[in-house]
């Protein structure tokens, strides 16, 4: 004979036992990862000494407020420009071919050498001498390249104007 019953005696988890089990599991994990734990503790110790932990802790605790303030700072035209410029600069470097850049950079490097020499010696050349320099093949090459550089820039400018009309 078994009457319907609804009473269930649940085993109430013993808090002391549960805690002991949890602690022993943690100790096991610590023992297994001894080296990593010790190193980590060392890092944490140093972070604490220089006050970084406190700062991070405060940031995390006030994360919503801090994010709002930070975003207010970012959410301004000047910042848009910075970020856009950064993106554009990033794109620009991406578009350069390394060999070309190398040629230009070595040119610039040598130019700087000459440039500083000139500045240091304080030498001033007469107009005539300057005019004569045009016959110098190195100067001629450089000027031709400069002109091509200007042409390329002009092309990009006029393309850009057309695009804006769209």
């Amino acid at each position: 004979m078994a009457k319907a019953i609804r009473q269930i005696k649940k085993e109430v988890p013993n808090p002391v036992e549960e805690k002991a089990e949890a602690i022993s599991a943690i100790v096991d994990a610590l023992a297994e990862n001894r080296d990593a734990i010790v190193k980590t503790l060392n890092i944490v110790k140093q972070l604490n000494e220089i006050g970084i932990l406190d700062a991070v802790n405060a940031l995390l605790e006030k994360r919503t407020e801090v994010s709002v303030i930070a975003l207010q700072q970012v959410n301004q035209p000047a910042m848009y420009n910075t970020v856009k410029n950064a993106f554009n600069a990033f794109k620009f470097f991406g578009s350069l071919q390394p060999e070309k850049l190398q040629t230009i950079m070595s040119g610039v490097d040598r130019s700087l050498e000459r440039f500083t020499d000139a500045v240091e010696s304080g030498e001033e050349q007469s107009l005539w001498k300057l005019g004569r320099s045009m016959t110098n093949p190195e100067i001629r090459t450089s000027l031709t390249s400069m002109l091509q550089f200007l042409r390329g820039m002009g092309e990009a400018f006029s393309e850009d104007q057309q695009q804006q009309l769209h």
Partner: protein
Amino acid sequence: MNGELVRACATKAQPGMKVDTKSQYVRDAQYEAFSRILKNHELYCTVCDNNNGNCVVHNTAEHLEIEHQKYEFRPKPYPPDQSHPMYRYEPDQCILCGRCVEACQDLQVNETLTIDWNREVPRVIWDNDVPINESSCVSCGHCVTVCPCNALMEKSMLGEAGFLTAIPPKVLEPMIDITKEIEPGYKQIFAISEIEASMRKTRIKRTKTVCTYCGVGCSFEVWTKDRKILKIEPVAEAPVNGISTCVKGKFGWDFVNSEERLTKPLIRKGEEFVESTWEEALTLIASKLKEMKEKYGPNAMGYIASSKCSNEENFLFQKFVRAIMGTNNVDNCSRYCQSPATAGLLRTVGIGGDSGTIEDIQSSDLIVVIGANPAESHPVLSTRIKRAHKLHGQKLIVADLRKHELAERANLQIHPKPGSDLIWLSAVTKYIVDQGWEDKEFLNKRVAGVEEYIQKLDKFTLEYAEETTGLSKDTIIQIANMIHDAKSVCMLWAMGVTQHKGGTDTSTAISNLLLITGNYGRPGTGAYPLRGHNNVQGACDFGTMPAWMPGYEPVQDPKVREKYENAWGVKLPEEPGLDNHQMVEGIDKGKLKGLYLFGEDMAIVDSNINHVESAFEKLEFFVVQDVFFSKTARFADVVLPAAPSLEKDGTFTNTERRIQRFYKVFEPMGDAKPDWEIFQEIANRLGANWNYKHPSEIMAEAASLATIFAGVSYDRLEQWNTQLWPVAKDGTSTPLLFTDRFGFPDGKARLVPVDWTQPFRPGEDYDIHLNNGRLLEHFHEGNLTYRSKAIASKTPNPWLEVSPELAEERNIKDGSLVRLTSPYGVVEVRALVTDRVEGKELYLTMNNREDIEAVNLLTSSYHDDITHTPNYKEMDVRLEILEEEGEPPLPDTNHRFGNRIPQISVRVEDKWKRQDYTPISEIVEQGGAKYGEGNQAN
């Protein structure tokens, strides 16, 4: 296409068609079209919960290499609609593509959603523009599933799916602003969002599962994060449902993580249950079973299996019962529902399952639904009927006491007197024969017993039918005409037919009518008893029945027994055992001393439960294995915690005979275990020495023994692959039965004469007929679905439907508390006045919360003579009003109070008619963009 600009979605592919998707012209058109979409949708993918690699808007923008937005995003002047407990609508993100409307109007066919193209800023609206929660929305989830972005989203996803999506709005909004201001081009944004999306894959697990809420057998992915269910994600590959779901399948899984789950075995000690270890519980069960078998013999124990558990679990359970416990006293809950249908089909066509698949149902010319409410009990299957009926000219006849949704939509609804279906079915059959409309060739070639059957039909004249069923002669003739005119007919039925004293005979009459008209063995034809539980079919198929070994091979056949005896190395009992009904009788008479039951709440679902419960009290030993502490468990000596489908592997067989795999999503909660593991542990304590490591090994054993499963294997059932039995050794399925032969040795079907059994009437004192059944939102009595807060908020209580006539006569209002009394018991429940029921007919839903609301307190122990299925649908009651005024049982937010707005599709033509609409072809011209040329001229 052939040089013309056309919409890909509205153009049928033709042979020889020249399709160009790459030229500048086409790309310009795509850019223009997509820019219009982005005007309606803010791209903040990385902080969007829909950024899971499957966002259509995201992926399309990326595919089209959209760099910048042509038209600026403009928020819509509507706040998000958060009113519904399961999903939200955010108009600002809505691209007005109309997929949700199309899904609601033409796939689910609930006809709730439209887009109002006439207002200045169009948006999706529910009913006549009411908050979602107050609309006719049935929460099926179709709209959310098809939404290509985050406009419609499951609330369970919000703030959960992404790493950054839980950011509070005051931080999130400036972040979006900054992103838009800087706008480095979408490529970079997409790169970041893709990194984030792939990071999500590490913590969001996607697992295929099969729904356990009805026999249709929908399959879908479950998305989980640890033990949290993020959402149900239907996929197009799912063979039965595709992207369709109902509210239970889409939103009803909270029970899995319920705190009320059983997580430890319980043992009755005195007046209470005490938690125990598995060791203690299993040892007790094993010793008790052994002791009782020795003391009373093997047949003094009964075993009740579960139609909610897997095929493998049912196979293993019957093996345990037969091979270890030495009895055939094993049955499952199909005894309560579909056994008469199975018996009626076994008699006539030789196989007790659906003749074809959901595809046959949707492609049929004429659907006849008898005593079934598929729109609530088999929701996804009914969507296919509603769609075919709405769009493709399918005809629909519904025979029911209630004007349920399909009845409202039907071309012809008939309301015969309760329990008289056999008569009108036979009268229609006779009329067809009298007109010479029977399929003579089919009958000659494929059917036996024709002459004798036709002679026995004499009695069913139109006059006799009119008198006994209350249907007019014209109505019966009209039905006959509709069947005659249809090229293919499917007949669907359920509990309204089977749960009667003459349930098997009425099922037989349905099959007879199909045979006479040749509606078997061709696409779009056949008999479809709609299975109620996810694995009613499979539980029967895999042998938890007293007279059948797996695969419907008779226990009494020595050759069948020999096969199993050789495989299992034991001697098997020869005579069929007791069914559920006989077990309860056996306990009552003191013959049955012990019971082992899993996954079944017999103390609620059996009829006349006062009687059943008093029987349970007499048991000497009772084991109940379940996910929750059920009402039946209150009577147990040992209660074992089982694992639901999401916590194990296995297969289910749906109403189509389709075997489908489901995969483990979570580890079992607490100490719960999959049912098959529990059986194995008990069997091994009784010396079985089984060693199944995975359900696939159990299926392999079943396939090696039962002929109809010869080619079934887990490898062939990987992921979305399925098999429909009979499955040949080489793995070939049989989606459509009887194409060449029927299930008898001579291959011919049988016409079986049947006569009407008068339904049970308790007497003059009980003056109102009581009908009862399921409802859409709750599974069965609701012990799983009530654990979903969202479902419970929309449908918190059972209710009693009362007709307006009766309400007026007795002064009953919405919310009146009434007492129903039958000779067997008393129920107290609140009323709802509705014209779904007529005259002196009541309908009581079975989702009872309190014991006093359970309909089976009223039902009797009378039953179908052949199958012993109780006559749940045959009861009259007395009605008294306890409180005239009271809280209505259904809140205003229930979909039944909504107003549908039927239309076909999204009516995009209305958008095209708007003043501000410019066709894309006018903006983009071949050879380049017009606007560009104009400017260049400057």
